[in-house]
């Protein structure tokens, strides 16, 4: 019992002002990429009926967002709002255009008869951030310049959404396969073949013999090794739940998840760029590797909600 308790013991998570600024900057760039460049480039014609309304598109009329005039006004508005968000000004208001645009265009994009899974993680983290800011404002915390404790909560919930997404993905695999996902791994050879050829039919580029023939053959010939390789991915997804325990958990599980995505990218030509970027920004948090050692010598003042820390404990965590 003691061992179990120590395994799930949560450590305080807080971030320096510089880390928070860099996270907002990088996240704003991801929103611009996924919300404007990705989603907006693939919107249905505003005059065409949606084939299969999905999510928000089921309950709200969203097709006006695909109107070229709205897009022309909307894009600079989103960009200006995100700029204000990056400097930390009134995020309840300044994140609103990005939220409307990201959720609206994403729902439209997924209402054309097929569902893509590239941008949901960005939309969910954005929604979570905005909701935390709204709750903070509702609790009469300064809303034009959110206090550091609230900003920490925003980042914590970003990590939480990312971890929960991966954990959910792991649960779905176990549920859909009646807990037999690992046993069925050899059949992934067919899925590798499909992924590689689908990528070729999409791009017009010839397939690589290694990916289209050697990899499926290797999976079938060495099923236990394949189970170990792909099973590690499933384990990493399930470990996503524990990213909220401490900076160290978030960092190492995050590095593992990025390695998993890179492996999938090499073997199956399926890229989840947004997933990797968000894990890199909020969980791995590369700037902390350089900023934290300095901070250990000059710790931030304790936040109102933060327990007393022993000197150097924050650094020791890393």
């Amino acid at each position: 019992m003691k061992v179990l308790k120590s395994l799930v013991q949560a450590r305080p998570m807080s971030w320096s002002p510089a880390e928070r600024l860099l996270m907002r900057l990088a996240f704003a760039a991801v929103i611009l990429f996924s919300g404007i460049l990705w989603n907006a480039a693939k919107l249905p014609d505003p005059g065409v009926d949606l084939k299969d309304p999905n999510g928000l598109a089921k309950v709200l009329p969203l097709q006006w967002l695909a109107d070229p005039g709205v897009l022309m006004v909307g894009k600079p508005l989103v960009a200006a709002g995100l700029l204000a968000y990056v400097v930390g000004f009134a995020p309840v208001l300044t994140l609103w255009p990005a939220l409307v645009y990201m959720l609206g265009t994403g729902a439209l994009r997924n209402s054309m008869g097929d569902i893509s899974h590239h941008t949901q993680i960005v939309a969910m983290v954005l929604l979570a951030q905005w909701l935390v800011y709204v709750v903070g404002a509702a609790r009469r915390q300064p809303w034009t310049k959110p206090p550091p404790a609230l900003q920490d909560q925003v980042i914590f919930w970003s990590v939480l959404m990312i971890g929960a997404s991966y954990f959910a993905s792991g649960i779905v695999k176990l549920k859909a396969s009646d807990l037999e996902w690992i046993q069925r791994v050899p059949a992934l050879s067919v899925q590798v073949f499909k992924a590689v050829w689908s990528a070729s039919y999409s791009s017009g580029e010839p397939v690589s013999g290694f990916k289209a023939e050697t990899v499926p053959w290797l999976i079938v010939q060495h099923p236990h090794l394949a189970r170990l390789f792909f099973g590690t991915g499933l384990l990493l997804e399930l470990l996503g739940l524990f990213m909220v325990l401490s900076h160290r958990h978030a960092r190492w599980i995050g590095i593992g998840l990025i390695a998993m995505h890179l492996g999938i990218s090499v073997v199956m030509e399926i890229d989840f760029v947004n997933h990797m970027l968000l894990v890199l920004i909020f969980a791995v948090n590369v700037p902390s590797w350089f900023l934290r050692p300095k901070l250990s010598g000059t710790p931030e003042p304790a936040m109102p909600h933060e327990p007393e820390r022993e000197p150097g404990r924050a650094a020791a965590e890393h």
Partner: protein
Amino acid sequence: MSDSESNAPQRRWWQHPLVPCAAVAVLLVAVGDAYPLSPFPMYSNIDTSANMLLVTNEKDEALPLSRLFNSGSAQLKKRFEKELQDQTGTREYQDVKPEQQVAAGQAFLRDLWAGRDKGDVAKLPAPPQVLRLKIRTMTMNGTEFGDTIHPIADLAVTGEGGEP
């Protein structure tokens, strides 16, 4: 949200940060794919057969789908299946009559051609005169693989700028 979820010492089990994280995950699984929410179900059900969609010209040369139609093979396959479901009530082309496959396939190709990128079509060495929709199926039986290509429908198009 409460302060206790991240940084304060946990006094009660429900204040532990794993609790909201698990709760969000359960919510995502329960709600399913409803943008912006998703449990990310890709490759959750590993099947021993897989279908791929390709569109060729009259010479049976595969057309680069993402460049010409702004959507990849996997997305277009789901759209064709949706069209098939709307017309016949099933997403499985094997379960419907050949004439139903042709009707759904031609409706899909008409939509596809209507949404083409005219500039990129014009850049092809020769714009297609005919679009051919095909489904390629890969199967696995033990250590043996099967590979078949099934023609669904053809649609004559009159080249760049023309209407089918």
